[in-house]
Structures are given as C-alpha cells and as structure tokens.
C-alpha cells in the first residue's frame, strides 16, 4: 500500500551539519534573537539556552517551572510564551529556557512545533517538506 501526503512548503537544511539544524528567531515585542536549533522528534519541548531568554529580556525564573529528563539525568527549565519564527512559520508558543546557564542545547521538540505542523524529511537531500496542520 502507498501513502501520500501533500506539503505546501519546502525548506532546505545543511545535511552536512550534525543534526537537522535550522535557523530560529524568537521574539518578544520588538526584541529578537536569532539562533540555530536542532529538530528533535525525541524531545517533548522546544528548549533553548538560558542566555537567549535573558537576551530577550525575560525574567527566566518567572516562567512555568518544569523538569526535563535526559538520557543522563535531568535539568530545570522555565516555559515562557514568545513568538517563534521557524521553518517559514511564525508561531506564538510556549518555549523553555534552561535554568542552568551551562546547558548549551537548543532543540525544537514536539510541543510548540511538531504538534502543529506536518513534516516530511528527506535527510540525504537536506530537505524538509512542511505544512501547518489544516493548511491546504
């Protein structure tokens, strides 16, 4: 049996980089930060380094406190609502900033991104096919 999906957008990424790395702009009012993050279907949340939240002007600890498990332990992060521009979409979403400034991972996970877009992946060509859920 064959299955078909239709996508409205095509975004290329550098298949030579470790992980599927894409540009992300997070913004708050008129303040924006550009960073690189890895698409991670194994992560529950979109989580960024503390420094990016601070540079946006957020009081990190005023967000929703959550614990995030990893294969080697866990860390605390705080969720804040921001506007996230990623893969040609502008999304108002809750994203997390790590409490510990030494955590240097930036990932795009399920909540806030994968829960609202359909994604097709051709990794050897560095291509992501995308549609927002419900988009023609």
């Amino acid at each position: 049996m064959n299955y078909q999906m239709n996508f409205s957008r095509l975004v290329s990424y550098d298949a030579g980089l470790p992980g599927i790395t894409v540009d992300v702009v997070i913004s708050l009012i008129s303040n924006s930060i550009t960073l690189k993050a890895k698409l991670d279907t194994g992560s529950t949340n979109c989580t960024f380094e503390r420094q990016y939240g601070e540079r946006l002007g957020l009081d990190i600890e005023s967000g929703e406190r959550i614990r995030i498990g990893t294969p080697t332990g866990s860390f605390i992060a705080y969720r804040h609502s921001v506007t996230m521009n990623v893969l040609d979409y502008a999304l108002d979403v809750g994203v997390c900033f790590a409490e510990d400034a030494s955590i240097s991972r930036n990932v795009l996970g399920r909540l806030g991104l994968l829960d609202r877009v359909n994604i097709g992946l051709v990794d050897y060509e560095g291509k992501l096919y995308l549609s927002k859920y419900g988009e023609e």
Partner: protein
Amino acid sequence: MSVELLETIKQQIGVLNKQQQAELSQFLQEQMKQDAARATAPCLPPGDLEAVEIRRRQHAEWMKSHREEYGGMYVALDGDRLLGTGKNYPEAAAAARQAAVSNAYVDFVLPPDYEGYMGG
C-alpha cells in the same frame, strides 16, 4: 564609519590567518542575521506594543495558573479568556475559529506533575 577607518580595518583583516578570517566572517554573518531579524520584527506603535505585551502576560499567567484544571489539554485563549479546549492542537484551534478570534493563543497546558524529555 569613515572610508579611512574601513580601509584600515580591511588592511588589518589581511594580517589575520585563514582561521581568524573565517571566525570574523562567521561573526559578521551572525551580526547581519541579527540585524535582519530586528528589521523584520513587528514594528508597532507604542500603544499596540503595550497591548501585545499585556496579552502575552495574560496568556502566560493563565497557562501557569490553570495547570491543575486543564493540564494535559490544549487550550485556545484570547488574553485571559478561555475560548475552548481540545485534546490536540487542531481541536483547540478549531475552537478559536468558532469563537471568531483570529489571533488566539493556542497551546498545551502542562500538567502539574509534567516532566519533559530531551533526547540524546
């Protein structure tokens, strides 16, 4: 910046080794991206900026204070007004459309005992 200063900087760049030039190039590219991001950021009058920030804070406060009640569900909010709920994003977004609110905030409410996961 004066033409002289620019020429001086260009000459100084010539003294750098290849790796340092690559680092400088990377730095300039990042700077240009930041500038582009700032240029494309929504430019709203001060009154509108304040309204946007008030709405953002209302959404954040609502999400934080309703984890017991709505944890594990998606909600659609208009400021601090609940428009509807759903078990996934499309359902909650549909509730917002039904309420005729085009810029509703739709997101997942974290349950009180929520623990996220980040892959290896």
